């Protein structure tokens, strides 16, 4: 448990490595997600999307309005389409953002092991398993 006791002065470089890794993963995932969201938005603007579509603030009965994807497969189809669906790029960013915390926990497991903290490697593995179960049982990202 010595890792948790180590000094954490700002900028002193003594931040325990597991925390650092999780922090970096969260930030990188967030920024990558935002970059894709921006890129999708920019493409959408270039293609005149902002002028052509009305924004559906309410869910239209039957069918999805532009910007709504209900599975990863749909997002990938949108990315493969020619011309490319710019909103699929944005949706990919959102999926990346959604997956980021789960990826961070997954990466924490080997990091805890390397730090010699088997107990917390096990706890992180339990948390990861629970997240995956609730995601799949809930019928989440296909």
């Amino acid at each position: 448990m010595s890792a948790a006791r180590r000094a954490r002065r700002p900028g002193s470089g003594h931040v325990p490595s597991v925390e650092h890794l999780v922090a970096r993963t969260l930030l990188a995932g967030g920024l990558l997600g935002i970059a894709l969201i921006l890129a999708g938005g920019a493409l959408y603007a270039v293609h005149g999307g902002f002028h052509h579509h009305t924004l559906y603030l309410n869910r239209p009965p039957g069918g999805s309005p532009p910007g709504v994807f209900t599975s990863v497969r749909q997002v990938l189809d949108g990315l493969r389409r020619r011309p490319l669906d710019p909103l699929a790029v944005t949706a990919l960013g959102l999926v990346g953002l959604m997956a980021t915390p789960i990826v961070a926990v997954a990466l924490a497991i080997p990091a805890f092991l390397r730090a010699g903290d088997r107990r917390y490697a096990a706890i992180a593995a339990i948390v990861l398993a629970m997240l995956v179960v609730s995601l799949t049982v809930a019928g989440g990202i296909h």
Partner: protein
Amino acid sequence: MSLVVFSIAVLFTSIGAGVVGAILGLGGGILLIPILTLFYGVDIHYAMGASIISVIATSSGAAAAYLRTGLSNLRVGLFLVMATISGAMLGAFLAGVVPVRALELILGLALSYSAFTIIRQLQDELPERLPEDPLAIRFGLEGRYYDFHLEREVDYRARRVGFGLTAMFGAGLLSGMLGIGSGAFKVLAMDYLMRLPMKVSTATSNFMIGLTASASAGIYFSRGDINALIVAPVAMGVLAGAYLGSILMARMRNTTVRKLFLPIVVYLAISMILRGLGIHLL
């Protein structure tokens, strides 16, 4: 409303929500959902989809900064989130079986009591010392952060871990059954029951809500509640706001954070009691 105007307006609103969410350890949904639905006329389902993304964006913008400075405690977060997720899974399973209104009423009363405990400890900068809990020592539920306001390092260790775990399980259970965010309950459990410094409580809650939100985001996604055109400005604004909020919070007093937290608890208490009585504010 034109899409450009909508996007810009929502972007700025979301920056505000991100700042508040990062400081208070909430996802920002408590602010975003009413604003998006009442002010911008967004469908409640899209607003909830935007809110779940905003929780993850808050976590990713703020928790990253908090984990670096030691304000967010990774071990405490992972340890407690096991209880929250188990509670949420059971809650989702029990939803529809239990009498919701009675639950809301009980929760409202419990929150009212919490509001009083917050008022009572409003002036306490750091928590009073309670007897050590062997569980906290065994699981390393402790840490140290540099407090910019006190200008010294603060060591802390969790107390009453059993109570904390039970409360986290309850928070997950309620959020699963009632479909509400549990950030506020997590903060209350860490601050009041486990006697962690207020700033550590909100920062650690920030990390935890990201985990639970990412597990439930899938269901919103597959239901078609996540509209990229609405969510994109929300995600960008919240991420930027959360980063800004994390810088502000590091410099705040614990008592200031608690004062800001009080109105949220009072609002939640009132809205839950009203819901229990059959009156929905939203």
